[in-house]
């Protein structure tokens, strides 16, 4: 009798294994709160919680471990505190940190029996996937979008990994589309948020991630014009706070810059040329409109209304920046403002600026409510989906802990009325996967002595038998290949190869190349008489499969819509949040609003999500 009566009764022999296990939960947002509760009440012995994020008001409709008084506090710490009250027998450990921090090494991951991803951004998901593969720890990956959810079990060598199926990366746009030739509302929104707002209130040096520079070279002349345009805008920034400021900004970006664009006749041969706005005329038509119009967030404002909100929000933001400046002491970095979808001043400014630009280019305008979603990359989120997804994570964990991967499933939640939950057997690893279709090993390196040559010659060529043609790479790029041998005498430490970074050895042999070898570096002083680089265990690097592997089928749409949908609200990685959430403009939004409707591959619709599995999925029989 007592606390563990029910779990013991239901779980049988598995219960004692669960009690002795040590698990890691990455992310304490929507799924994380539910999952932590379930882990604690299932009796997992030790649970580590890691999340970089702090609590926001918009979390409280589902992240039930948090209350109003916790706003701005660490999610990981508060989650631990709240959940700990309910089962004193479980050991909880919280890390208010970024999972990508160097302290969370492969060895640290090895200390867990199981890792749960309760994340919402692609980047952190990929990182944990890679670490778990390297540490050979099973990973349970999950994600939600609105009513949809997904749970996937990942185990090195046995199942697909997160990167075995290609994932959509956040949308980006050519610079010229945003700056010179917008044709959709989203182009104007990105312009307002990532160009205009940043130039006036932020640091323009941080180039926004939604800018795609791959076409810059072809448009060198226009790019140079645009650079000068930005410079001129920066000069206007100095008059911030003066009465003339809104006029000067307006006349620059909605007047002069547009006239310049219009004069580029080639640009408008196949497009409607933009019409510059006249400050005095617009301002006259706006007299008598109260700035409080900005609370009507479901309506599409007319030109004059957008003008009023533009001027008013520009004043509000200028005053804020000035106030902050007054408080900054000399020597500190100058203060800046960042776009935040939940910060009304910044949202008003972006809404009005984007719409004014839309008028200029003859594009439809959007309501503030819609722009919030498009600019802030808001993904709908509710408690019910999280509850189901977290529950499914734990059920999959049972299979993994029993070592019964045959029974583990890829599980989908759908809005469909017939199949609430459906599953499919796990897929085998994709042999061409750049992440798990590789050999892995630890590489012990003596940082005082080891050179790249030690690695290339004595280890790779002599010990492992690599031929002439191969390259050594890290995140930054190629360190060695037969045509690039300058680095060979350099110490690895001087090449930026530190503990817990990764090196990838790519065999470029024409006939029978090996799969890629990923080496995770571990630094430690080695005795003088031993080699300065060594493999702690013997490594087999298999050859690449001969036959041309069938093309990887794209992940089911839900994987694109859900698994890596960056969600700013419950983000385990605040730094990333600024990037990931600001970049990713939700596919569905783009699809719906923009001109990509014909791209059926984009169709992230619930009804496509259903995965039939006559043996094990949910079955509907009806007459």
């Amino acid at each position, binding site marked *: *009798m007592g*606390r563990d*009566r*029910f*779990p013991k*009764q239901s779980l049988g022999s598995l219960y004692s294994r669960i009690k002795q296990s040590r698990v890691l939960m990455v992310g304490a947002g929507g799924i994380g709160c539910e999952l932590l*509760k*379930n882990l604690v*009440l299932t009796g997992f012995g030790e649970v580590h919680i890691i999340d970089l994020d702090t609590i926001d008001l*918009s979390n*409280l*409709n*589902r992240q*039930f471990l948090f209350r109003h008084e916790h706003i701005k506090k660490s999610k990981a710490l508060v989650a631990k505190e709240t959940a700990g009250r*309910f*089962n004193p027998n479980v050991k909880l450990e919280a890390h208010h940190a970024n999972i990508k921090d160097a302290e969370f090494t492969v060895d640290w991951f090895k200390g867990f029996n199981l890792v749960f991803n309760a994340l919402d951004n692609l980047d952190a998901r990929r990182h944990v996937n890679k670490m778990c593969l390297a540490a050979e720890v099973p990973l349970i990956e999950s994600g939600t979008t609105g*009513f949809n959810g997904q749970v996937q079990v990942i185990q090195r060598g046995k199942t697909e990994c997160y990167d075995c199926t290609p994932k959509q990366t956040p949308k980006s746009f050519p610079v010229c589309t945003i700056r010179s030739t917008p044709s959709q509302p989203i182009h104007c929104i990105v312009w307002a948020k990532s160009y205009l707002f940043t130039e006036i209130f932020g640091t323009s040096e941080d180039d926004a991630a939604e800018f795609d520079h791959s076409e810059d070279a072809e448009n060198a002349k226009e790019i140079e014009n645009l650079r000068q345009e930005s410079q001129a805008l920066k000069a206007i920034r100095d008059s911030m706070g003066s009465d003339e400021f809104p006029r000067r900004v307006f006349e620059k970006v909605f007047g002069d810059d547009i006239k310049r664009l219009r004069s580029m006749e080639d640009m408008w041969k196949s497009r409607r040329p933009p019409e510059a706005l006249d400050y005095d005329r617009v301002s006259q038509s706006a007299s008598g409109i109260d700035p*409080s119009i900005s609370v009507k967030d479901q309506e599409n404002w007319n030109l004059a209304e957008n003008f009023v909100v533009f001027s008013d929000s520009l004043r*509000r933001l200028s005053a804020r920046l000035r106030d*902050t400046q007054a408080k900054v002491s000399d020597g500190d970095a100058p203060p800046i403002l*960042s776009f*935040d979808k939940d910060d*009304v*001043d910044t949202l008003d400014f972006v809404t009005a600026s984007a719409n004014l630009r839309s008028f200029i280019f003859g*594009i439809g305008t959007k309501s503030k409510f819609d722009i919030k*979603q498009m600019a802030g990359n*808001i*993904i709908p989120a*509710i*408690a019910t989906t*999280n*509850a*189901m997804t*977290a*529950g499914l994570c734990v*059920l*999959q964990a049972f299979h993994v802990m029993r070592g019964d991967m045959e*029974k583990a*499933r890829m*599980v989908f939640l759908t*809005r469909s*009325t*017939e*199949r*609430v*939950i*459906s*599953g499919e057997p796990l897929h085998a690893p994709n042999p061409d996967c750049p992440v798990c279709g590789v050999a892995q090993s630890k590489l012990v390196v003596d940082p005082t002595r080891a050179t790249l040559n030690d690695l290339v010659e004595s280890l790779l060529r002599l010990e492992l038998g690599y031929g002439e043609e191969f390259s050594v790479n890290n995140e930054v790029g190629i360190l060695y290949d037969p045509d690039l041998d300058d680095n060979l005498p350099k110490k690895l430490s001087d090449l930026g190869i530190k503990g817990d970074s990764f090196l990838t050895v790519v065999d470029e042999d024409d006939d029978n190349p090996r799969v890629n070898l990923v080496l995770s570096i571990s630094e430690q002083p080695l005795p003088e008489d031993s080699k300065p680089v060594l493999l702690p265990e013997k490594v087999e690097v298999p050859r690449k499969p001969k036959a041309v592997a069938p093309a990887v089928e794209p992940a089911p749409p839900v994987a694109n819509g859900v698994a890596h949908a960056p969600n700013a609200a419950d983000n385990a990685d605040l730094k990333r949040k600024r990037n990931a959430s600001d970049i990713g403009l939700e596919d569905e939004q783009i699809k719906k609003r*923009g*001109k990509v*409707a*014909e791209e059926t591959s984009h169709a992230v*619709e619930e*009804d496509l999500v259903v995965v039939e599995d006559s043996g*094990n999925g*949910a*079955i*509907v*029989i009806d*007459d």
Partner: protein
Amino acid sequence: MADSTPPPLHGPSSKEKKYDRQLRLWAASGQQALEDSHVLLVNSAGPGVVGVETLKNLVLPGIGHFTIVDPATVSEDDLGVNFFLDEESLGQSRAKRCYELLEELNPDVEGHYIAESIENLLEKPDFLSPYTLILLVAPIPARLIDIICRTAHQTGTPVFYIHSVGFYAHFSLLLPSAFPIVDTHPDPASTTDLRLLEPWPELSALVEEKARNLDNLSDYEHGHVPYVLLLLYYLERWKKEHNGQVPQNYKQKSEFRELVRKGARTNNPEGGEENFDEAIGAVLKSLHPSKLSSAAMEVFEAEECQNITKDSQTFWVIAAAIRKFYLDHKATPLPGAVPDMKAQSADYIKLQNVYKTRARADFHEVLQTVRTIEKNLGRTTSVDEKEVEAFCKGAAFVKLIRGRPFHIAGSKAGINWGHRAKFAYQALQDPSSLLPMYLGLLAVDTYHAESVDKPLDESSLLSYTSSLVDNLEREAAAAGSSTQDVDLTEAKTQVSQVVQELIRHDGAELHNISALAGGMIAQEVIKVITRQYIPIDNTCLFDGIGSRSSVLRL
């Protein structure tokens, strides 16, 4: 950076901010419906975690009120499965402690608790009247379920009947006998309704204006004729060559697609035209006559729709008006939305206006009918225009669910499968069906019919399940199912495995399963309360061993 900025001067209310993520799923109208609701949770015997988890998922998004009925006091056992109970709770009323901790989750929700048994409470005849939705958690004596369901069915109050035992969860849903839904949130890709086969004069005029001289247009203009107009233009050409008939079948549609494809100019750097690509892509999905879905047909054929009275619900008044529209025009009102497409802005806006104007006109015609109905019947309140407009926009996707009583396994004589006997019998023969679990749970209910305190007994359960199977077979045979050559060995084995599993757990709840089921149930509750999306009809089973679920109409 956000930290260094002072709070904004004005903005959305904190409630809007808190609910921002969900308002994007059910809008302000859905939120209002949630806030107007009062959910009753009835726990009687058993750990009752699944109900509390369900409530948690309803308190967070902000239902108005909840009430917990539960006679139990908190024991050590509870602490291991119920997240909302802590050491301090030991010995106190379980209803009270759960209420306190749930209410903490959302200050906008008002909670209540009654630490008494439902049996006593039901003696007050109007006890159930304040509640807009009832969650009944097994085990609970059958005759009490019966009383509650009867009362609820009279008042049109939805009831969820719930099991959570070990790795198994189940819920059945009793809806009012007519439960219509206007806002079903159909897949946006399926809602495009362009009426290409039934163009009206204004639309044809626009085709004439923009596409008549197709061959003489400049490359730029040619590449910017909206695809809708292209399709209409080529349809006219097709009809001339086919006795005025539009493409009838797949083969003809493919031929038509070729015709359009040939019209594209390819002597340009792109080697084609985007607007033509869009047109080609739309041929198969857009060239069908507007036909009413069977779901919408059911609404218009419903008796309630054909016999409007002074007291009919507004839904039926509007439905009757739209039915008239449909009979007059052989089509539902035009929704009016036009998808994005390659076009010059001015042309696109013109096209949009043609559709919008027509949609407005259709809406006004329906509204006129509504007003006439109201006048003729002497109805005192008039239907909100906005409601009529929303109905017109979604008319092709409305849905009517006919709530039916779920099975109550009260006596050893078993249950009556009625007109679902054939279906259930067929499901029983499908080895992947979860029907055996349902039979096992019904057997447990039979066992608990009189008293919920006795530990489960295997031989009784097996005898109940086997009579359930036999009765089902008999009923199905009477309804015309062939029972010859049907081998139920596997089904019977499955049923007995379910019984073993139920005995093993003996009423124990696994927190994780109850939490998951709490998510599934709350999701359906939200659909029912907001009258948005289509709720399950009417039984959902979940097997946590295989992580699979199934929805059966029983």
